[in-house]
């Protein structure tokens, strides 16, 4: 059984969270301004990259 890659897992979760927020935005449940959307995009991409980089170091 292959050990799960924590970096990829965390990156996937970050992208899934972003997708969920965008879905809620489309549904009208939450109201994200373009500014906050930028914050989310940068935070998710940054989180995913950091997680992936840390995962690569553990390999």
């Amino acid at each position, binding site marked *: 059984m292959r050990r799960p890659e924590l970096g990829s897992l965390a990156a996937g979760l970050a992208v899934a969270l972003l997708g969920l927020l965008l879905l809620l935005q489309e549904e009208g449940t939450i109201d994200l301004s373009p500014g906050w959307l930028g914050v989310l995009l940068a935070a998710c991409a940054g989180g*995913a990259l*950091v997680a992936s980089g840390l995962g690569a170091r553990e390999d």
Partner: protein
Amino acid sequence: MSNGRTPWLRRDSSNAILGGVCAGIARALRIDPIITRVGFVVLTVGTSGIAAVAYLLAWALIPASPGGTATARERPRRRRGSWRIATGVALLALSVLLAFRELGFWWSDALVWPLTLAAFGVALLWSLSRPRPEAEPTREDRGAPPALAEIEPPPAREQAGRLSRAGFGIALIVGAGLLFLWAQGVLDAAGDVALAALVVTLALILISAPFWWGLLRRLTVERSARIRSQERAEVAAHLHDSVLQTLALVQRRAGDPSAVAKLARHQERELRSWLAGSEARPGERLADALRAAAEEVEESHGAVVEAVVVGDARLDEHLDALVAATREALTNAAKFASESGEVRLYAEIENGAARVFVDDRGPGFDPEKVPADRRGMRESIIGRMRRHGGRAEIRSAPESGTEVELEIPVEERER
């Protein structure tokens, strides 16, 4: 244990313009990379930059093709994932700044963004200014003649990488200054002066370009000549230390054919290894460990073992077991069949598995009639391979030789 399959999609670092994502997708789809690159640019424009963020994510998440962008020299120097972490931290810092802006904790766009850009530029330049730590000798370095490895300057690719990073850092700082001046309205007044300065600078570059080009060419030619000369000296020294010494020993032991054959085979292996630009690392690499096992059996049993190994992998506990089982099979072959001719070892490490075949033309035996107390075959070969997730098959019959086949999966990322 993984199934050993190679991922369908990998970044193609050898054809990369940025991170090799477009080239990797093109290779997976068997189309020209220019198509995916144009598509990416169109997507980036069409999605107001969201495709660029997707590119960053793809770069982080898609594994690089073997022999990625880092050269063998760079690898020990830079820890894995450093660039991903640095870019990620930069993006997180950007998100915090944007969040502050949205929340109203903000001074002024004219101050914060230039400062941010300048900070990244300074950080980049500062990281380049640190002294380069001593790199561990790489496989290529160890294989190359020592003096040559010492005098050789950093590879052109590494130098180009450092230059481009320095250029990017300088551009960030200059851009930050220009952004600040533009936000203050100073740039409008200085526009004419800047244009004049730009034209003069371009003219100076054009005038002096032939001189710089000639200088660069002369330096390159001199450097090539120096390297060739060092290389010739090293080859001569190596031939003296190895081949000539062995020939002298051969003359002295001319009366002992077995010793002469052993010397010749040892020298042949050493010379082949040197010509291939590698140094044996039997404690780290499977191919070297198998060759060392063959040599060991040859030395201890006086047999002739013809070893051919295709592919390689980093040793782990499972591959250690494969080497031990191979050594046992070689020892059996050398003990019982060395008088009937040479023992052959063939190994291939590819498609996520390592397969080893040991065969001889000896008297053979009936595997079903082997006594239960013969632990060599049952435990040291078959049992050992099973315990480590592999398999062993022994094909033999009286008077028809013996073939031992060993197979074990190889972790793809360990190769």
